[in-house]
């Protein structure tokens, strides 16, 4: 089974992400990056499936040069190969633009299954997987909390409002996984060494045959008009527990007539 994993590389969790009021985009340059933990979970599923059924895992990442660190990490975890979609023209893509770039790259790879995170941990829109599946013309089994593959068929437990649904489809298909689906492995020394020798293919918009008006800021149908801050909450009080914090909370609750 050949698996493609869409792996976003995002500002590291230690970074407070900001939006540049000029470009109206997230500030991605000049901050440290990491493989999105949600993407690591998607990759872990791909690795487990191919360990069981054979085949390869290709990681596809759209991102700036700084994303390389996350791609190396994915290779060190065990991905067979990687594709880095790297072009200034991709900057400012909206969700559909992103899905178009990913779809064009994935069409170049032989695949049975595409795995994505349900949503990235920086922007959380959660709609790229559904758009991507439609562009690739394959069914989207979204919000998976468990995946099983057998005999050309994929079965997932899909999160629902009241529990979960068991849904199945024939391959090829796309699955988006919830972040708690597994505990992603840490790269081992052997994997890290092996990753250094693995090639990262790089594609530009031209390599993918994408017209400039389809992608990036130029192709984006979603346009951010204004960047603002919500009205601030009035500053709260912060205390350090010195043995009576429980009592102080109770005092506040009593004062607010909540008890």
């Amino acid at each position: 089974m050949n698996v493609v994993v869409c792996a976003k590389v995002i500002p590291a969790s230690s970074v407070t992400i900001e939006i540049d009021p000029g470009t109206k985009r997230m500030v991605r340059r000049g901050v440290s990056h990491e493989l999105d933990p949600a993407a690591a979970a998607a990759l872990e599923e791909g690795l487990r499936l191919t360990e069981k059924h054979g085949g390869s895992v290709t990681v596809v990442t759209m991102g700036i040069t700084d994303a390389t660190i996350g791609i190396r990490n994915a290779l060190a975890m065990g991905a067979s190969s990687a594709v880095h979609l790297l072009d200034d023209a991709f900057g400012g893509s909206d969700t559909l633009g992103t899905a178009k770039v990913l779809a064009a790259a994935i069409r170049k790879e032989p695949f049975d299954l595409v795995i994505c995170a349900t949503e990235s941990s920086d922007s959380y829109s959660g709609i790229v997987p559904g758009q991507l599946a439609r562009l690739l013309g394959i069914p989207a089994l979204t919000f998976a909390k468990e995946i099983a593959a057998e005999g050309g068929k994929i079965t997932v437990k899909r999160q629902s409002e009241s529990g979960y649904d068991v849904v199945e489809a024939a391959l090829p298909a796309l699955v988006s996984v919830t972040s708690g689906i597994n505990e992603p492995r840490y790269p081992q020394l052997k994997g890290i060494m092996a990753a250094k020798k693995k090639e990262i293919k790089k594609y530009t918009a031209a390599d993918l045959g994408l017209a400039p008006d389809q992608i990036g800021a130029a192709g984006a149908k979603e346009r951010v008009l204004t960047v603002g801050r919500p009205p601030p909450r009035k500053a709260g009080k912060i205390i350090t527990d010195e043995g009576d914090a429980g009592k102080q909370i109770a005092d506040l609750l009593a004062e607010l007539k909540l008890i």
Partner: protein
Amino acid sequence: MSDLIWVYAEVVEDRVTPTTLEMLSKAAEVGTAEAVLLGPAPEEAIQTLGNHGAGKVYRSADPVFRDYLTLPALETLAGLIRSHQPAVMLFASSYAGRDLAAGLSALLDSGTIADVGDFVLKDGSVEASVPALGGSYLNTATLVGPGTKILLVRPKSFEPKPRGQTAQVEEIAPPADPSVRKIRVTERVSVPQEGPQLEGAKAIVSGGRGLKSAEHFAMLRELAELLGGSVGATRAVVDAGWVPYSMQVGQTGKTVKPNLYIACGISGAVQHLAGMKSSNTIIAINKDPEAPIFQVSDLGVVGDVFQVVPQLIEQIKKRKGA
């Protein structure tokens, strides 16, 4: 541009979802509201939709919409949108809503704005206000280009308003194309919910990873009970399997606005803040003084939840007894 606004009506557990009614009420306020209701639904569903502002309901009760996930609805909606060209189509930020908005935007090559908290019709398009990065920003966004504008709306963004109207019903045919049956739902499993509903709770006591294990939710239950409220959780602990998804508060869980929110051992990830930061009074207990949850708290306690919460429980019991 017409002022025709469509709402995708969702039914969960045999009930039209609250977000459906919130969106319809808003749609009726700013334009002409109509709804699309696909698949089995309770008898009173159409009346409920009409009462909340839907002048018309496009309806098919065919079980194909229930048994093959969202693909049949996707094809049907695409067809309906092409023939009627509503200005805006609203979906709830739910599982089905996100699937459909995503699929439709690719199918119709139109943009989508996710996580919409409010919107107006403006200059032939929409202008949506979108809380970004967990609500640390409040941006406005629009969609350019022709075609129906697709918005994914956050729950609890609008007030549901009964208007005492009735809806006209237009029966539509289910899709005949066998390709919509590519994804089969073979089983639906309900995980029973513990305690009272989070929605509508006046007080919510939530736990995060700082609680260390599932057993420690017992003390949160005790506290919630004393406050007449219910228990919530972060995505991290739901993902870890400590508590069921129905308890998840956050961007991908429930959006709540209780009178009192007590966050115990919750650091305040963007994902969580998005679901609770408009609560009236927020109290947070966390051992890390740098935890982002303190930035939205009215009272922040830097301390050990295992010390502070039991003391709080004891204090409330004492005062109630007094």
